[in-house]
């Protein structure tokens, strides 16, 4: 189960990276990165998963006493939330940059922005 999730996550990461590294269109790159981020997030939650357990919320179903036996690992869930938000922030930032770049040169081709080199 978690193997599958992991594998999916990794595949998404690789696919995203491939897209980001082969598409010269900046918008496509950004999209590709979001895909990769999604992959990362999947990997995160997948790691926290324990077979046959429930969400880390203490209610009538999960009394405090046996919580340790009943719930899955809450930490990755906490982490993934942060990761998502940060990823979103960066994506938004990249979009803004993309707009700025377009204004600069009326092109979204990454290979047109290479005057800084050597």
């Amino acid at each position, binding site marked *: *189960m*978690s*193997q599958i999730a*992991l*594998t999916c996550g*990794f595949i998404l*990461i*690789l696919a995203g*990276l*491939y897209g980001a*590294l*082969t598409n010269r269109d900046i918008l496509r790159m950004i999209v590709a990165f979001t895909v990769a981020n999604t992959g990362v997030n999947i990997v995160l939650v997948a*790691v926290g*998963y*324990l*077979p046959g357990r429930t*969400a*880390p*919320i*203490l*209610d009538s179903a999960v009394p*405090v006493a046996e*919580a*340790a036996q009943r*719930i899955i*690992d*809450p*930490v990755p*869930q*906490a*982490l993934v*939330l*942060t990761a998502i*938000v*940060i990823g979103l*922030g*960066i994506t*938004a*930032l990249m*979009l*803004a*940059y993309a*707009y*700025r770049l377009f*204004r600069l040169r009326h092109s979204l081709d990454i290979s047109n922005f290479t005057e800084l080199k050597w």
Partner: protein
Amino acid sequence: MIPKVLISVLLLLLGYAFWTLSVGYAPDTELNRTAAYYAANAESEVGAPNIVTGIIVTWRGLDTLGEVTVLFLTSAIIALVLSQSGGPSGVSGADFLPSGELLTTGARMLVPLIVLFGAYVIMNGHLTPGGGFQGGAILASGVLMALLAEPTRRFGHTAILRIESLSGSFYVLIGLAGMAIAGGFLDNGILPLGQFGTMLSAGAIPLISVLIGLKVGAEFSSILQSLHETEDA
């Protein structure tokens, strides 16, 4: 073509690394010590049934503060980027086609509900799945809808600004208060933990959630608005 091949080779090698990770991966049968501690002390320490929220707001509160800051940064920088970019001034989009009747009416009907729902998610963050971020996002989606419904509509930048500043500052202050009168920076113990599982419990968590929710909502809204203003024909 060559670069594509090269990239693929590189990624394949990286994939090999990942593959070894995932084949080597064996899910825990027991909670590791950290998780076990959280499970055991969720009630006594933070008094939040939703352990995840407890972790986010309290135990890993510093991360969360940073997270909020990320959004804050992003909105600030985006404002910078777009203000510099010499794009059309804010009053653009006046010549947009009016969005359809359906959307407008729907928006009029839905936005209040969305906002309400957002508020709910925020308030119950420590009891049920949800919390400041989720709620804030929902609030922002309300704003987004409003923007879509009426492209020419503008929210008061200053209002959003005030909200994010105030909520942010308060968040920091609460953190400091934790240092002053409780166990440390961002300790939620500044308020009584109260009755486990009730609405007004878990110390400062609900309060912090509200602040987070407001801030996140405000940040998202300003981001959306800034991006929205960049639209031009």
